[in-house]
């Protein structure tokens, strides 16, 4: 009885319906919070005394960066769960997490570049954190490309699970080494984040945005998961019933 929830995770129709009803609450909440947070951050928080209004991109940039980093661990943990317990849901979660994570990482790099042009005078510098984010983007793309390269999708997800676990072990090493590399080649430095203090009037909308982008990420994962469920079980009666409606 205590393990009933675990066994239910093996049942595709149950997951499809459960995630559907969960999305019914999560998605409106996430959308509302994103809208509220954006308006709060973009219109009502005070302008920065050095950067004026251009700093406001942090309300997009910081949340997507934070979530894209966390997303790799979501993918790797889902991969580990699917390898260990052979849980189909975890498997699908992992494969859905790769393109979403890649998109968020790309968005983080893009918003950073857009912000960099007016602030630093250039779209791109090889700063330690930017470089780590580029490596992260390629780690995501590697998992995604490996998955797409296999015709047999059951093998594909096992291979991707191993790759993302190896990546997880490697990520701290990559970050440390990129940090060290940057300190070695310290260019005419653009120090911006010295003694990061942020006024509560800017912090609260930022925290709200981070929270709502996490929620949005969860929604995207669930939506991807539901789509994958329907795709892989397209031939079963329950999937037909869900798509075609009760007949």
């Amino acid at each position, binding site marked *: 009885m205590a393990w009933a929830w675990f066994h239910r995770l093996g049942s595709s129709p149950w997951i499809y319906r459960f995630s559907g009803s969960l999305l019914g609450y999560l998605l409106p909440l996430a959308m509302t919070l994103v809208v509220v947070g954006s308006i709060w951050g973009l219109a009502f928080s005070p302008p920065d005394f050095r950067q004026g209004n251009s700093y406001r991109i942090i309300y997009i940039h910081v949340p997507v960066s934070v979530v894209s980093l966390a997303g790799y661990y979501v993918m790797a943990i889902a991969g580990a769960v699917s*390898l260990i317990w052979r849980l189909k849901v975890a498997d699908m979660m992992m494969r859905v997490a790769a393109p979403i994570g890649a998109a968020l990482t790309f968005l983080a790099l893009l918003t950073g570049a857009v912000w960099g042009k007016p602030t630093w005078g250039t779209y791109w510098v090889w700063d330690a954190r930017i470089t780590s984010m580029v*490596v992260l983007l*390629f*780690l995501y*793309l*590697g998992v995604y*490309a*490996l998955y797409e*390269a*296999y015709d*047999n999708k059951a*093998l594909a997800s*096992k*291979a991707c699970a*191993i*790759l993302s*676990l*190896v*990546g997880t*072990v*490697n990520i701290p*090493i*990559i970050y*440390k*080494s*990129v940090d*060290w*590399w940057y300190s*070695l080649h310290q260019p005419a430095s653009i120090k911006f984040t010295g003694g990061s203090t942020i006024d509560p009037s800017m912090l609260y909308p930022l925290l709200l945005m981070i929270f709502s982008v996490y929620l949005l990420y969860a929604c995207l994962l669930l939506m991807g998961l539901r789509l994958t469920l329907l795709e892989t079980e397209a031939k079963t009666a329950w999937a037909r019933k869900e798509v075609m409606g009760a007949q």
Partner: protein
Amino acid sequence: MSHSVLGKVVMRQLLLAYRRPAAVLNPLFFYGVVVLLMPLGLGPKQAVLSEFAPGLLWITALLAALLSAEIVFRSDYDDGGLEQLVVSGDSMYLASLGYVIAHWCLTGLPLALVSPVFAQLLSLPAQGLPALVISLTLGTLILSAFGCLGTSLTVALRRGGMLLSLLLLPLEVPVLILGSGIVTRAVNGMPIEALISILAGLALLAIALTPLAIGASIKISLEV
């Protein structure tokens, strides 16, 4: 030693290479021809070449390791040798470790040993040579471990080459940074012992852990 699957795999790979020496020479030829491209692209100025030499020598080593890794499991996958290895019941960990060590003996080690010759072509200052050989010796061990891992994941795919570089190069970033950093520091007369220890530690970590993943991926590629 030679009775364990580790020794058997290593000896077999070395024997195969001995019978077909071109496989050992190809990475070295590749290294030479890419080094030839550097002055053609950057111009023949010795000052420019010697400034970029540590990075260029290391990037080329990364590419050579990548290209040589592509064929590690290919013939054994095609002729069923890998399947026999899996069903034999021997430890896949030790067998994978054997493939890594053999690959390193056949590509990384020779490359590290002849790298001073290539370094001359790019006018690397003499004080950087020992650092180059040591860092390549240790670093290529990691590259071989990751190379075998990448190949074991893609061996079932017909067109794995481009994919392999996308999978492996991001993982190999720390090796490149440390390796070329060690050579650069040696050229500038700075101490390198600590960095060499770190690289050696990473190499040990890589050969201890990657065989786990390689063994699992071989089984996945064989669908067993």
